[in-house]
């Protein structure tokens, strides 16, 4: 279940002088363009979500049980630790993402015009690898005996994989993996967003004597707010749904990470180890609500969906 927020499809700008048939044709074309996506969204987004909500509110016999599944899963001994794990991870991951992505794209945009295309490609490259494959790569990188950066791990005092993936290190390790696989795409997007800032504005700032730092803080970052908000919503949603990283590292270490480390893993345990699809659905609905709540806060605070014309 993903909680991607979809901006309402817009039809083209309305030309008030045009005649009616042309307008009808245009909106028809618009519907035609979004129809394919809408069908897929219904089949693989909306319907499964509705089914999950139904499962979360009922029991294995199809009777409505209210919030029974929610209180039951909340009382599970793994639930609060899983939330704590993911909370810590989100704090580290979101702050790293916000600071580093904005910083790197500003630097690429301002100072490294000549090398920027190559660097953007390099940043993006890890993201082009399939998610699982890149986590597998990290399994090798994190093992001091096999890693090409083993000297660094040894310098930190870690001699074995077991020491590297000690429980206290996990949120930061997963952040590093997630940053490496996911940040490149956002840097490319932010770079694109920076290009939309009119050159005259930046030139005016320069003529007024603004330093690079001032330009960044007073002009570029404020004008990027909506993009940063958009990144925040998606990163928060995908962050709460962390699954592949703990699951694979756990498998590779013969189970050194508990199988219910993240809420999404716990949901998986409910469904496929205990055969309790209702409990699993309740946890996934928890994550949906979390994602929606975060999206709502960010959207209302930043006016993400406000139209430019006032």
């Amino acid at each position, binding site marked *: 279940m993903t909680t991607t927020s979809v901006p309402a499809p817009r039809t083209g700008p309305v030309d008030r002088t045009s005649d009616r048939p042309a307008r009808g044709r245009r909106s028809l074309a618009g519907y035609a363009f979004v129809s394919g996506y809408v069908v897929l969204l219904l089949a693989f987004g909306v319907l499964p979500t509705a089914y999950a909500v139904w499962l979360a509110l009922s029991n294995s016999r199809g009777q409505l049980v*209210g919030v029974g599944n929610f209180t039951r899963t909340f009382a599970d001994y793994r639930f609060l630790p899983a939330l704590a794990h993911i909370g810590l991870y989100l704090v580290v991951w979101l702050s790293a993402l916000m600071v580093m992505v904005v910083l790197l794209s500003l630097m690429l945009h301002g100072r490294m015009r000549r090398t920027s295309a190559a660097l953007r490609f390099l940043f993006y490259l890890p993201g082009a690898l399939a998610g699982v494959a890149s986590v597998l790569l990290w399994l090798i990188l994190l093992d*001091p005996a096999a890693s090409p950066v083993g000297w660094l791990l040894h310098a930190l005092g870690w001699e*074995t994989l*077991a020491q590297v993936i000690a429980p206290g290190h996990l949120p930061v390790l997963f952040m590093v993996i997630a940053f490496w696989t996911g940040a490149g795409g956002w840097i490319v997007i932010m770079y694109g967003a920076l290009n939309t800032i009119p050159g005259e504005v930046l030139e005016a700032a320069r003529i007024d004597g603004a330093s690079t730092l001032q330009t960044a803080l007073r002009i570029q970052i404020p004008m990027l707010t909506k993009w940063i908000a958009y990144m925040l919503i998606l990163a928060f949603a995908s962050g709460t749904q962390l699954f592949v990283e703990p699951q694979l590292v756990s498998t590779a270490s013969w189970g050194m990470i508990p199988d219910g480390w993240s809420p999404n893993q716990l949901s998986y345990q409910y469904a*496929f*180890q205990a*055969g309790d699809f209702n409990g699993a659905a309740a946890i996934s609905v928890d994550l949906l609500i979390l994602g929606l709540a975060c999206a709502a806060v960010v959207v209302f605070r930043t006016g993400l969906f406000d139209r430019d014309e006032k």
Partner: protein
Amino acid sequence: MKNVRTGLIAGLGAAALLALTACGSATPPPTSTSSASVAFKPADQDAGSAITVWADATRVPGIEAYQKAHPDAKITIVTYSGDANGATDLQTKVQLFDRSGSGWPDVAFTANVNDGSWASQGKTPYAAPVNQHIIPQSTLDGFAAGANDPCTFGGNTYCLRNDLAQVVLWYNKSLMSQFGYQVPTTWEEYQALGEKVAQEHPGYVVGTAGDAWAAEVYFWASQCPASTATGDKQVTVNLRDPKCTRMAGLLDNLIAKGSVAKDTVFSANFIKNTAGKVLMLPGPSWYGQTLFNSTFKTPAGQIAAAAPLKFASDTTTTTGNVGGGLWFVSAHSRNLQASADLVTWMTTSTDYQATAGTYPADKQAAVAWLANQKETGYFANDVGPVFQAAAGQVWPGWAATQYSQEAIYASTVVPALNAGKTITETLDSWQTAISNKAKSLGYTVNQ
């Protein structure tokens, strides 16, 4: 913007209303579970129908050999992970098939010895009770004593064991004679030798406690009641029992001295730095070829197996077990005859099992397998008598459960060891971890 908000509130209100109109319990009692008294009702049979077999890549050549020997058999082979290394693919898929009402494989192989615990449960268990007119009793009697214990629930046999993983004492014969040591026969002698090794030959090891299956190698052999079944979905977990603490103390002592490693034998670090310094290693029968020969690349003629160790105060020798595959026949199969025939052949055929990688659970097949091992000339002694005796010495007080003892040990004890704690200090949190996990899967836990 206002409309969005009103809509949101209305939606939340509707959801809350729906949520509050509850009329059932969130955990309804299961409609029925498997029990010995319920006779097995097969699906409608179709003698000529094709069967689907799920197996891991290792087993596929065997199935192909069966097809060659039985040209009339119509078999579709599906290769999957085989639930190796803690994967749960079979259970995951069966749960989904149970929901959709079709798709179950007629025959399935799993490398997870615990899989019988869920496959025998539920409204319609996935596994057919093969002892009920599907596989003759004479065939079942041909298996080593206790080999089918992980398949036995409520008096029925829900699977056939493919291979045994009885724990023996592996040792490096060349190193032992070079150092002038005697192979120990009791845990007390083992501990004394471990202390001596730590002093005389630092760096050499006599065991490892960092493997996920260390609990099964040491604590199972020590008769520690960490997973003792006392009834249908009832377990006793008592790690404060003297039979657990004696082993924890022994290991803690040798870990502190340095002759028992905290690493796992399959880690890159162990293979690189310690594999050549393994003097002794209590471990399953598959360590011989899989670990020493294929992973450590220890040259032929060095590695030998000795009988499992016992505590001097115990009257009989008991040992542990680390894994061993299972073959299921689906209760939903429309061709039980063909499915049963394949499963019987795969587990008991001396031609096929003789060439298998692991020790066969069927006694006849095991004899053929051992003869084949002798021919390879890899081992420094005849492992046959040791393996055969140990096969019957696996302590029956350690039951297959729906949860993995290995995963619990790996996520509870191993990180603690690496953080500098002792196993004895970790017993309480280990106990809690097992009880919690068992309860979450509907087990009743006694202490």
